[in-house]
């Protein structure tokens, strides 16, 4: 009797893990297919007389990019200052606080700017994308596109993906600048280093490689956000409540994907 009581939840637990794993693999497969299909439409849409529309891409770019500028600036600036405070505090132990610029420059450009930008875009645009697709699916708008002979991947997904792949690196570059500037201002106030001297040092330290590392990573984040959001949005079931659920899932999963990818990327590149 007692045996069964402990056996049952354990079995159920294992079963849940198994189901979760199967579902995870299925979703990975769906993500792969989606990337493939999107690239297919971008490349050969014109030949199929179903081109990916430039104006649709621009609408998405405005939404993803321009709308995010204030919050990206705020976050990047805050993180820049935070890095400066932390760096100076730590380096003081060795009496090497003037070297703080090295730490700031590398951390902002290679890690923090892409990461924070990716997280903000996941929260703003990834959730919006998942919610939009989920709502459209529930309202049969996706079915309507199908019967009108308009491929939804071409019409909805491709513009969003292209827009993100352009705007996330652009926003990352912007947050590089804001982060470095904010940190520079703090360093100037705290250590009395002039902004000009600070930026001279930053440029001296950073190579194009470092910049590309950050930007390349952010383009990868863009793909992750778009694909995870679309797959979640399209998997909606139930009514408005279902849309809420998949939206949350989309944001949580894309932020997790971003952080894990970031770690893997850093590990591979620094070897």
């Amino acid at each position, binding site marked *: 009797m007692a045996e069964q009581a402990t056996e049952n939840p354990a079995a159920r637990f294992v079963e849940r893990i198994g189901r979760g794993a199967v579902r995870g693999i299925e979703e990975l497969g769906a993500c792969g297919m989606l990337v493939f299909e999107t690239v297919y439409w971008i490349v050969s849409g014109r030949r199929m007389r179903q081109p990916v529309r430039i104006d649709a891409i621009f609408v998405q770019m405005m939404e993803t990019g321009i709308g995010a500028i204030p919050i990206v600036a705020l976050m990047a600036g805050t993180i820049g200052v935070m890095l400066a405070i932390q760096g100076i505090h730590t380096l003081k132990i060795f009496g090497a606080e003037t070297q703080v610029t090295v730490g700031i420059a590398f951390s902002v450009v290679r890690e923090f700017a892409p990461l924070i930008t990716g997280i903000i875009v996941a929260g703003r645009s990834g959730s919006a994308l998942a919610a939009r697709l989920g709502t459209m699916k529930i309202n049969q708008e996706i079915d*309507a596109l199908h019967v009108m*002979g308009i491929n939804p991947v071409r019409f909805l997904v491709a513009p969003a993906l292209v827009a993100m792949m352009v705007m996330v690196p652009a926003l990352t570059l912007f947050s590089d600048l804001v982060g470095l500037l904010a940190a520079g201002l703090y360093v100037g106030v705290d250590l009395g280093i002039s902004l000009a001297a600070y930026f001279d040092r930053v440029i001296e330290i950073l190579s194009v490689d470092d910049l590309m590392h950050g930007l390349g990573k952010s383009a990868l984040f863009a793909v992750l956000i778009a694909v995870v959001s679309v797959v979640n949005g399209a998997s909606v079931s139930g009514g408005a409540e279902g849309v809420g659920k998949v939206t949350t899932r989309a944001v949580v999963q894309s932020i997790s994907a971003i952080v894990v990818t970031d770690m893997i990327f850093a590990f591979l590149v620094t070897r």
Partner: protein
Amino acid sequence: MSQAIAPSRPASVIEVEDLVSYYGPRQILRGVSLDVIEGEIMVIMGGSGSGKSTLLRHLMALERPSSGTVRLLERDLATLSVRDMNDLRKKIGVAFQGGALFSSMTVGENIMLSLHEHTELDPTTMRIMARLKLEVVDLAGFEDLMPSELSGGMIKRAAMARAIIMDPKILFCDEPSAGLDPVVSSAIDDLILRLRDAVGMTVVVVTHELESAFKIADRITVLDKGEILFIGTVEELRNHPSERIQNLLNRRAEDEVMDADAYLRRLTGIEVSGAASL
């Protein structure tokens, strides 16, 4: 001999043969066969959950059959290439149950979308064509409104306008008058009749409103639990001897006779599964 028959026999634009369909493990359609003839209004009736919408989804190639074939305008849907399917889809129009208007576009943009995507017409021509269709559904002057600003009846009519923008050969309507007041719903019936009479469109309408079905139908298909109970004219349906069909027409609930044990089992069964799902 066959020559004598051939010319008088009207062409079938939709041919369904032995269609079987599942959602997961649940069988929804159990071998449905059906012909729709060019220029007729075929009404599909049946109780809620009998598979009407599912059948309609198969006719517009939104679902894949488990077995059986669906032929539209003499093309087997299962064997069409992506490109041929797109070409075929330009010849059908669909008014979905909830309208399914794109909520981020104005009514006019909704109606023009197909023109925009499938033709090279200039914007002025497109706008004129959209206004013409809005005129047909009595919505002239509403093209700049968003779908969220329309009433239920207006949404259905706008959806109808979008469905006919490419002058389709076949028009599908899922519950065009469900949830509307009698006046509006009768106006939509008139609209369907007008479309058929004016341009010879073939129309397939799903409805569970008897009155509306009797008013517009050339033939009626009665679907029950995924099976076809009856296909024939309105007259034939009215005079049909089957008790099951007469029950349906008179809106009498079926399965009223059930022994007490089964009833109790069903009640407790529902109770248990209800508690488990919480």
